[in-house]
């Protein structure tokens, strides 16, 4: 896929699509970081307005740097204010200077004041060796939204370099926890993936679990104990309206949206049997997809919506199975020692992440959708609930931190150490959204 793109670089550049620089080197287990230079963004404005815009441009530059620094595929040369360039140089950078500095990729851009008080932010990504533009993007934002504009630039650069969508303009839902034991209070919380715009979306008066964002984070499906029985509820983040997905007297849980947002798969108890069902995201009658005795749960759609991976203990221990989205052709894909649970299909379709239940506790791993290439990413012993970043190169998961408090960590596929994400209190059950529009 990426190689065929390389054969048609001009077409790709014209379409503004990804033309990966060295993407063929970036494979799990073989990290190869691309060095990128981000000299401070400039402005076409002059006078006091120009000074004001330069300050905003410097802020944007630092935000782009911070975004790209989080990734393992890109190595950022620290922006330096003495590398200032003029507005015409945005589209005609001095490649020899950056070649000498060792950069393989370059980001230039500008911030321009508009008559309506908003800003135009333009971003350009270049292949330094070839002296060629890879991608460009312009966005218009209100003053307070310079962060989002910077995220768009970061995503543009990341995609141009890796061929994968960036996860900078995404949101993360999780369960915020306070108190311990019987007095634990759990609330659904939502934040931008860089930790900004943190808010609580449930009050804490009812136990809640496992938030799952709709593809563009406009709705959240989660498990609520309102009324005493755990059941799947849907919350519209715009109207704040909450509705049960199915009748609340029946135990239902483990919801996940289809990639197009039109369907929701979930688990429902019937007597002692736990099966997987699918229902339109607008409601209606649920259709049963599995019938085996035992516990079938944690269903996750493939990115094209045609298949579903789930866990079942029908064979004696928790293992992963793949079926068609109508429930036909159920095949086991995980074998070997230990139980495989909580699967999640990557947005690019290449991997299925899971929680391994083995003698050393719970660890996060990945395998191909046919069950090959199994690889563990974390050492446990209390890791759970992997959720993919939009890039398909990173996962969020939960793990108790050093003090034993539940925390949210992220780990890349390239053997690096998991890093704890900063949240205001203890947290669990992370769910990472796709890229915002």
């Amino acid at each position: 896929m990426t190689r065929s793109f390389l054969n048609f670089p001009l077409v790709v550049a014209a379409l503004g699509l990804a033309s990966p620089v060295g993407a063929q080197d970036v494979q799990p287990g073989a990290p190869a970081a691309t060095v990128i230079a981000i000299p401070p963004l400039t402005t076409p404005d002059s006078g006091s307005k120009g000074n004001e815009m330069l300050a905003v441009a410097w802020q944007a530059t630092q935000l782009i740097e911070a975004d790209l620094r989080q990734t393992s595929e890109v190595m950022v040369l620290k922006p330096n204010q003495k590398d200032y360039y003029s507005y015409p140089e945005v589209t005609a950078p001095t490649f020899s200077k950056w070649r000498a500095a060792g950069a393989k990729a370059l980001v230039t851009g500008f911030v321009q004041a508009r008559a309506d008080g908003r800003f135009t932010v333009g971003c350009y990504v270049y292949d330094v060796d070839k002296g060629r533009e890879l991608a460009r993007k312009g966005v218009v934002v209100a003053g307070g939204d310079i962060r989002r504009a910077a995220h768009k630039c970061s995503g543009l650069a990341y995609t141009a370099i890796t061929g994968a969508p960036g996860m900078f303009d995404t949101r993360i839902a999780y369960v915020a926890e306070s108190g311990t034991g019987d007095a634990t209070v759990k609330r659904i919380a939502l934040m931008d993936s860089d930790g900004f715009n943190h808010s609580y979306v449930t009050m804490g008066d009812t136990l809640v679990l496992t938030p799952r964002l709709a593809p563009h984070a406009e709705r959240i499906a989660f498990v609520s104990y309102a009324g005493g029985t755990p059941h799947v509820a849907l919350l519209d983040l715009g109207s704040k309206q909450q509705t049960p997905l199915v009748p609340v007297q029946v135990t239902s849980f483990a919801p996940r949206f289809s990639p197009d947002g039109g369907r929701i798969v979930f688990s429902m108890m019937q007597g002692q049997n736990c099966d997987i069902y699918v229902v339109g995201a607008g409601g209606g009658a649920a259709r049963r997809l599995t019938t085996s005795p035992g516990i079938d749960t944690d269903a996750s759609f493939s990115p094209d919506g045609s298949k579903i991976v789930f866990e079942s203990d029908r064979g004696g221990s928790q293992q992963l199975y793949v079926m068609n989205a109508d429930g036909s052709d159920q095949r086991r894909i995980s074998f070997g020692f230990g139980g495989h649970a909580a699967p999640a299909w990557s947005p690019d379709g290449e991997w299925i992440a899971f929680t391994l239940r083995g003698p050393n506790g719970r660890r996060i791993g990945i395998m191909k959708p046919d069950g090959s290439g199994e690889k563990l990413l974390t050492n446990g012993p209390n890791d759970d609930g992997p959720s993919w970043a939009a890039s398909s190169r990173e996962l969020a998961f939960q793990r108790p931190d050093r003090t034993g408090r539940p925390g949210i960590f992220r780990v890349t596929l390239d053997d690096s150490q998991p890093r704890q994400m900063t949240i205001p209190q203890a947290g669990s059950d992370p769910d990472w959204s796709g890229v915002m529009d």
Partner: protein
Amino acid sequence: MRKIFFLLAAAALATGAPAQRRLPVIVPLGRPAPAPALVGIDALRADFAAQSGGTTVYFASDSSGLVPAARAVLAAQAAWLRRHPEIVVRIEGSGEHGDTRDHALAVGAKRAEEVRLHLILMGVPAAQLSAMSWGKERPGAGRAVTILVR
């Protein structure tokens, strides 16, 4: 009167008085207050726990099958519930804390349902029974607890 003595004692403690200082001798007046009598649901809960050998049954890891000890407890619970047809109970099942969240939720639901079905088998009317799962959300893994709700 007694109140004043307590206040004096408290004041002495609060000022950190040395032990050799003379303290008023506290003499309890009258008979000691009786333990608060259990009334209503609390009394019934205590009686239920005492007579049925416990409110809780335990399961083997990842299993919802009843072990013999659990059957004995449930037989006693059933006998008590048959004598109290006005009582409604909720059976709360829990999974293992080492389990994944959703599987634990299902295991807890299966355990609670197993207990509910067994109590029905032992002659308790279904209308007296309800079941739910805590998954791994509450302390006390691997068990099902029968709780009187009214």
